[in-house]
């Protein structure tokens, strides 16, 4: 039967006990003396939850964070996005948000780090930078009045991504961290985009900042863009697949997606003698997930924060 949850892995009763979980329509507190935050609305002088999730209080601000939602975005977030449209002065990108993100022509680095105004000629040459279906890493720069987010790639960290795979997970699983770019010691580089888009590519000999501001360089940042197909040996591809499947597994079990749990799953799957394509078989996935929970790598649960 499709809908029966197998009883194999019951959750501990104390899980999430410290957090207050609410569902839509549930009254939170009186409106007087509190500020209405996201995920709430006012009804008859009471603050009421509008989404199912966990209550968060910052001083007087009361908000409810849904357990699953589209990416909301904050200025400074690292995101991975896909170009869907090339406009006159801007690229429209899919950032897994309510509206398409915007990457202005003036918000990218020109080849060689040249600093100048963008000319009409640059506008005509936009397709030489990014075209539809290109995957980029970028940072949220600001928000427009209509709520759409404006991105920029004006750092050598950001730019077009190549020779790798895009894995999408629930955005709520990616937590804000000091470092969203992570290169594993086994030669796989990942970008944990805050919007739930995770890039998994091969770590090339060129570190992102190798030819920092060389005039004449055609690089504009990014990972793996110069890597050739031939750089990706069978073993590198296999490792990439293993990391991808580790991320898919974390998403399926709704566990935090970060470097540490991915690395732990990578190691555990090798220890267990699983090939990358075996990792997501039901019995193996449950085995790996149980092992990950027991290992304590997941640390403090999101719910307990």
């Amino acid at each position, binding site marked *: 039967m*499709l809908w029966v949850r197998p009883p194999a892995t019951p*959750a501990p009763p104390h*899980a999430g006990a410290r*957090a207050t979980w609410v569902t839509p329509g549930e009254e939170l507190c009186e409106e007087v003396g509190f500020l209405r935050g996201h995920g709430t*609305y006012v009804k008859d002088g009471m603050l009421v939850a509008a989404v199912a999730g966990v209550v968060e209080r910052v001083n007087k601000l009361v908000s409810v964070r849904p357990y*699953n939602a589209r990416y909301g975005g904050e200025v400074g977030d690292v995101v991975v996005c896909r170009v869907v449209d090339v406009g006159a002065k801007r690229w429209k990108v899919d950032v897994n948000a309510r509206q398409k993100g915007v990457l202005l022509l003036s918000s990218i680095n020109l080849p060689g780090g040249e600093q100048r105004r963008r000319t009409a000629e640059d506008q005509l040459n936009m397709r030489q930078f990014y075209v539809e279906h290109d995957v980029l890493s970028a940072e949220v720069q600001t928000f427009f009045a209509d709520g759409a987010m404006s991105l920029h790639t004006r750092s050598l960290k950001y730019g077009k991504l190549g020779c790798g795979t895009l894995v999408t997970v629930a955005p709520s699983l990616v937590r804000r961290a000091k470092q969203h770019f992570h290169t594993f010691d086994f030669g796989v580089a990942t970008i944990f985009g805050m919007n739930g888009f995770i890039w998994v590519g091969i770590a090339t000999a060129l570190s992102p900042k190798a030819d920092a501001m060389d005039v004449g360089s055609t690089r504009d940042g990014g990972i793996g863009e110069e890597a050739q197909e031939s750089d990706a040996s069978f073993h590198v591809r296999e490792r990439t697949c293993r990391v991808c499947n580790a991320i898919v597994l974390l998403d*399926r079990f709704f566990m935090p997606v970060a470097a540490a749990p991915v690395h732990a799953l990578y190691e555990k799957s090798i220890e267990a003698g699983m090939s990358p394509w075996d990792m997501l078989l*039901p019995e193996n996935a449950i085995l790996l997930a149980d092992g990950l929970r027991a290992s304590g790598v997941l640390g403090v*649960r999101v719910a307990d924060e």
Partner: protein
Amino acid sequence: MARASATAPSSARPGRHEFLSPEGLRADGRRQAEIRRFICKLETTDGRADGAAFVAQGNTHVAAAVHGPQDPSGSTRKMAHDRAIIVCELAMAPFAMGEWNPRGPSDRMLTEIAAMVEAVFEPLVLTHLYPGSQIVIQLRVAQVDGGLRCACVNAATLALIDAGVAMRDYACACTVGHVQGTLLLDVSAVEDGAGAELSVAYLPKVQRIALTHLSAAIPADELGEMLDLAIGGCKQVYDALDGHVREHMRLVAAGYGGSNAGF
């Protein structure tokens, strides 16, 4: 006998069929004010939809998926600049009603129910929070055994909650049948075919009725009683839905959630 003038299918044997035994039990063993087996399931991180849910009310099975709030690109509808628009797409399996009956997208019954679902959720969702976007509710009906509208509303509610869309309240729906002078909660197709069916969508926390739909004429003085019974049924549905959402959140918080966690 206050039988309504509904045209009953031949299978229902009106007038001869006992719908409530002397012991107060119905054909399937339920009491008068008892809903059928209610099964629901949230399917977070389906990977394609933002939210997904499955609802089975007895043998009426509906799956729902919510896409959005998203850019209204590719939509045939106009967008509103100050709020989100809600679009419901309903499809039914050709075998859902018992006999093979393929229904196209312009089928009258399907478009009517889809419009009804939109009308229920348009005021319920806090659409002003998502200006210039659209929320698509896709409903897929696998089998129908009475109470299709209600199962659609319940499935859509769950899928919207799963998608993290801000809503004022749950919309819980349940039917009441008026069969041979007796009122029966959450009627199956056989009971429904023998009389009139009242579908009610209720907002349990706001305490308002969001929708009523009556399939045939009934004596006017019995409407109040039917509504009371239906609201009681909606509260039973609410308990089931809310209980499941809370259980799902508990599993999610413990790292046991996700649609495929159990595979």
